[in-house]
């Protein structure tokens, strides 16, 4: 027991070495002796509060990453989700809905032809949106119209056991994230190119920028000189 009657000192955020906690949690199997101990309730509350506070801090990055990734995937699949929503039609008796899978399949084929979406993203979006057993026929109809074969055949042709294969879901998500990174890289390159081109197309602007820089430099020098003068005068 501690000298303070079994009340552990409260832990501050910076005091927990989470890398050490992670390592200790993953080590070898520990052969311990399980027993009971009497402890003041406040001691346990203190530990829980401390760990809660620091865990949130430690998890911040990974939770943020997951949130960002899920947002990127949502954006990549939005066009398919919108299609499915747009072509979910109320039945004549107003008691239910049905999917116009033919229209969705045709529109999706158009998107694939124009390159607005790639095959893997389309297959992922349709199969994750229509993943209930009662939606399977509609999902297969969309696959057949847009991709030429039913969902499981398409998945097998791409090396998976079926459209429900967790490896497909995982790898499709990774591809969507990779696509996003590539697009972002291309965009950055294009932005740099546009800036350079603008400068070459507008030599006066470039000259003006250079003059401004010189002016700022001159002023800076002047200030430095003024300061220097001031210092001399002090």
């Amino acid at each position, binding site marked *: 027991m*501690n000298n303070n009657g079994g009340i552990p000192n409260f832990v501050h955020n910076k005091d927990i070495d989470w890398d050490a906690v992670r390592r200790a949690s*993953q080590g070898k199997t520990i*052969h311990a002796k399980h027993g009971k101990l009497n*402890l003041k309730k406040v001691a346990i509350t203190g*530990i829980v509060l401390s760990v*809660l506070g620091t865990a949130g801090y430690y998890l911040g990055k990974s*939770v943020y990453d997951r949130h960002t990734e899920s947002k990127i995937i949502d954006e990549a699949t939005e066009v398919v989700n919108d299609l499915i929503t747009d072509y979910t039609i109320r039945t004549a008796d107003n008691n239910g809905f049905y999917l116009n899978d033919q229209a969705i399949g045709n529109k999706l084929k158009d998107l694939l032809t124009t390159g607005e979406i790639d095959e893997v993203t389309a297959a992922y979006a349709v199969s994750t949106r229509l993943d209930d057993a009662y939606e399977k026929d509609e999902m297969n109809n969309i696959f057949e119209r847009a991709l030429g074969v039913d969902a499981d055949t398409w998945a097998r042709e791409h090396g998976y056991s079926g459209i429900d294969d967790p490896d497909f879901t995982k790898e499709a998500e990774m591809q969507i994230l990779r696509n996003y990174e590539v697009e972002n890289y291309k965009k950055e390159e294009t932005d740099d190119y546009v800036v350079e081109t603008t400068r070459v197309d507008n030599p006066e602007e470039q000259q003006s920028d250079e003059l401004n820089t010189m002016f700022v430099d001159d002023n800076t020098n002047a200030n430095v000189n003024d300061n220097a003068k001031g210092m001399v005068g002090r």
Partner: protein
Amino acid sequence: MQEIDVYSWDDNNYILFSKIGRYLYLSNEKNPRDIMIRKEDSNDPDLLLPLDDDNEFNKALELFYNNAKVDEI
């Protein structure tokens, strides 16, 4: 005072401050900064199984972060 579960090895007592599913959240009685998350063995209560990898560690920590209820302690 409250009776709590404790795991002892190498002259240390680790207090079970939370248990969620199979995950055991332990803190050294003498040094509360010394924390670890382990899995229980359903056949042997004296065995503390390690987490598989960093992903499982993050998962177990998130589970604690999202589910620990201070008012129920």
